[in-house]
Each structure stands twice: as C-alpha cells, then as structure tokens.
C-alpha cells in the first residue's frame, strides 16, 4: 500500500508546525524522517496515525493500515512480557506472539513482569508489538531510544524483514541504523513560528 502525503498542514496546540508536507512512501521502502528537536516530526506522525486531524491536505492511507509506535511503549508493569504482547496480538486479531518474541530476543523474559525490565528491554517489547499488529505501514517515533547496538541491529533486521514482505516504514530518528533508506527532512516545511494562529473551528467562528 502506497502512502501519499499531499500538502499536509499539521498543528500542535492550535498552531501549525509543518505546512505543505508532501512526500510518498511505496511498499518495500524505508523513509527516515529527519529534523531537529521540536521540528514537528512527532506531530506529523500522530497526524498520519489518525490521532489528530490535519488542518489541510490529505493522506492517501486510512489509519487502519498503519501501526504507530510512539515514544511511550504502552506497557503495563504488572503484566508479564508475554501477557503484554498477547494482549496486543488479540487486539489486532493475530495470535501468534512467538515470532515477535524471537525477533527481539525476548524469549528468556516471557514470564518477567514488564515493570522489572530495563529501559532497553521495555523498548524491545514495545517494538515487538509492531510485529503482532500485522499492519503494512509502520510509523515509528524514535524507536531506538535506550537500545544498545545489538538491539538496534535486531530492530534493523525486523524492519528489513518487514519491508521485504512488502511493508514500509516511516521512521523519525536521529541516528543511522544501517538501513537502506530514503530521507525526508521536515525542516523546509516548518511553519512560520511568528505567524498568527489560524485555527478554524466552529467554536471560534461564533466569536468573530
């Protein structure tokens, strides 16, 4: 499934942060989203994932085809590793968590409570969730935070396997993880920070 982003304007707190974002991502591609801190990468990813509406522009893919990996892993500390992953597998209607556990080297930790994992292990569990979603397009927000070199390698392998099966991945990151990828820099799309707020909601219309 091809992801076409056309002239997209995304907002944070009612202010546009990126304007006219246009790029495409075809099946089998990895796209690295680059840009300095605060440039709007997360906001763009959240908009593409359907968590917030865009102000302008269009996205060709429904959020139903997208698996979103946020900063937070969404783990429950009192549930075990297997229970956490099994929950997401059931939610997405896949049921086999063994490949995901193996891909992120979590087999030895299945009965450990997620609250007792290290930061890197939690991250690996959070990333393993992507494998059980069974969705074609991955949107990842700084997936390698707190991962060591070996785990970054595991993650890169997982992404390679995913795009090898016709999936695609849009990854916001600051590091080079050795993937064959295209780069999209969001810096040229940044909205004018001194521009006036252009929020057009029905609520405001009543007062103008």
């Amino acid at each position: 499934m091809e992801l076409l982003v056309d002239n997209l304007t995304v907002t944070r707190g009612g202010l546009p942060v990126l304007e006219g974002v246009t790029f495409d991502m075809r099946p089998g591609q990895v796209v690295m989203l680059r840009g300095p801190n605060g440039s709007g990468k997360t906001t763009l990813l959240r908009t593409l994932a359907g968590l917030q509406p865009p102000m302008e522009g269009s996205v060709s893919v429904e959020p139903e085809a997208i698996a979103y990996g946020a900063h937070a892993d969404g783990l429950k500390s009192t549930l075990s590793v297997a229970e956490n992953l099994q929950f997401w597998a059931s939610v997405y209607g896949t049921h086999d968590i063994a490949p995901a556990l193996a891909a992120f080297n979590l087999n030895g930790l299945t009965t450990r409570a997620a609250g007792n994992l290290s930061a890197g292990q939690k991250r690996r569990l959070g990333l393993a969730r992507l494998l059980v979603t069974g969705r074609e397009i991955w949107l990842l927000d700084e997936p390698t935070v707190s991962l060591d070199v070996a785990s970054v390698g595991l993650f890169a392998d997982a992404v390679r396997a995913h795009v090898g099966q016709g999936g695609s991945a849009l990854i916001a990151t600051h590091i080079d993880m050795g993937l064959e990828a295209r780069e999209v820099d969001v810096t040229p799309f940044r909205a004018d920070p001194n521009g006036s707020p252009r929020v057009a909601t029905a609520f405001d219309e009543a007062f103008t």
Partner: protein
Amino acid sequence: MIALLLRDMRLGVRSGGGFGLGLAFFLIVIVLVPFGVGPDSEILARIAPGILWVGALLACLLSLDRIFQLDYEDGTLDLLATAPIPMEGAVAVKALAHWLVTGLPLTLSAPIFATLLNLESPGHIWVFLSLLIGTPALSMIGAFGAALTVGLKRGGLLLSLLVLPLYIPTLIFGAEAATRGAAGLENATPLALMAGITAGSIALLPFAASAAIRVNLR
C-alpha cells in the same frame, strides 16, 4: 474487546489496581456510621439503605480515575486509539471492567454489610437489587467523567466534582427503591426509573466519552 476486558480485570485485581480498595472503604464507611449515629438499632435500620447507597457510591468513586489515567500516562491510550477496536467499544468495555472489579463486589457484599446496620429482611434483597441495577450507571457515568479529565495531571478531585452531581438521580432512585422495599412498600417506579438511567447511560455515554478522549489525545 474480550482481550481488553480480561486485561483490565487482570490489572484491576493485581497490585496497585484498586480491587478490594473500594470494598474495604465501603466496609469502613458502614462500620463508622453507627459510631456517628449511635447504637439505636431502629434509627440505623431506617437509614441503612441510604447509607449503603452513599457508601457504595463513594467507594465506586475511589477507583474511577484509574479507568483511563494510567493508560494515558503509559501511552496505551494512544495505541488503543490507533488499534482496530472502536473507541466507543473500548470505553464501554473499560466501564464494564470497572463495574466487574468495583460495582459487582459492592453489590454482592452490601446485603452482608447491611446486617451491620441492623437492616432486616426483605431490606437485604432490595438493597442488593437496587445496587445491581444502579451500579452499572455509576461505572459508566464515571468512565465519562474519567474521559473528560484524562489529560489532566492529578485530575481526580475535578473528576469527583464533575461526576458526583451526575450521580444524584441514580442515588435518589436507588436509595428510594431500597428504602421503600425495606419498608414493604411498592417500589417498582423508582426501580424502573433507575433502570432507565442505567440503560440510557450505557447507550449514550460511550459515544460522549470516546469523543472526549479523542479531543484529549490531540
């Protein structure tokens, strides 16, 4: 959906989930009342249905902010919003899990605790029945309040202020049904009205709550 229900119940029962907390609070309130009112068994029996209802309502309130707040803080709510479950369904299921972990134990224990207030048969049965019909509304209305305050840090107090006024109709009809039942009077009308509130909130509030969550996630 069933996975979400099972997960929420499992979380509720495990440490830090709040299971038993509401029940223990309920018991303490019921035990405290005779100390405050005095040991006159006639007065206690007369106010018992009302006290049981107020106690159940406050116990229910204790764990409301857990319905969405914890999921919001650890990022689960974002991921649930992008998952193939409709948000309305997720809200309804989470309210149901809250009821199974809080409302149902309160309902089941109320007839036993009623003995502490010298409530005699058939008052037990009416307290049990009115709570059984009324507590689902408490969980559902509470889930709506929790959805409204989900983005706020330490929103528990605001949540109580928002939700308690909305509990008033359920409390009035529930306590009325139990009191009239205990006195051996006709109580079909308050029971029916309370059932109406419960059915209405289950039908409508998941949509309102999921809209509130979507706004809070932006």
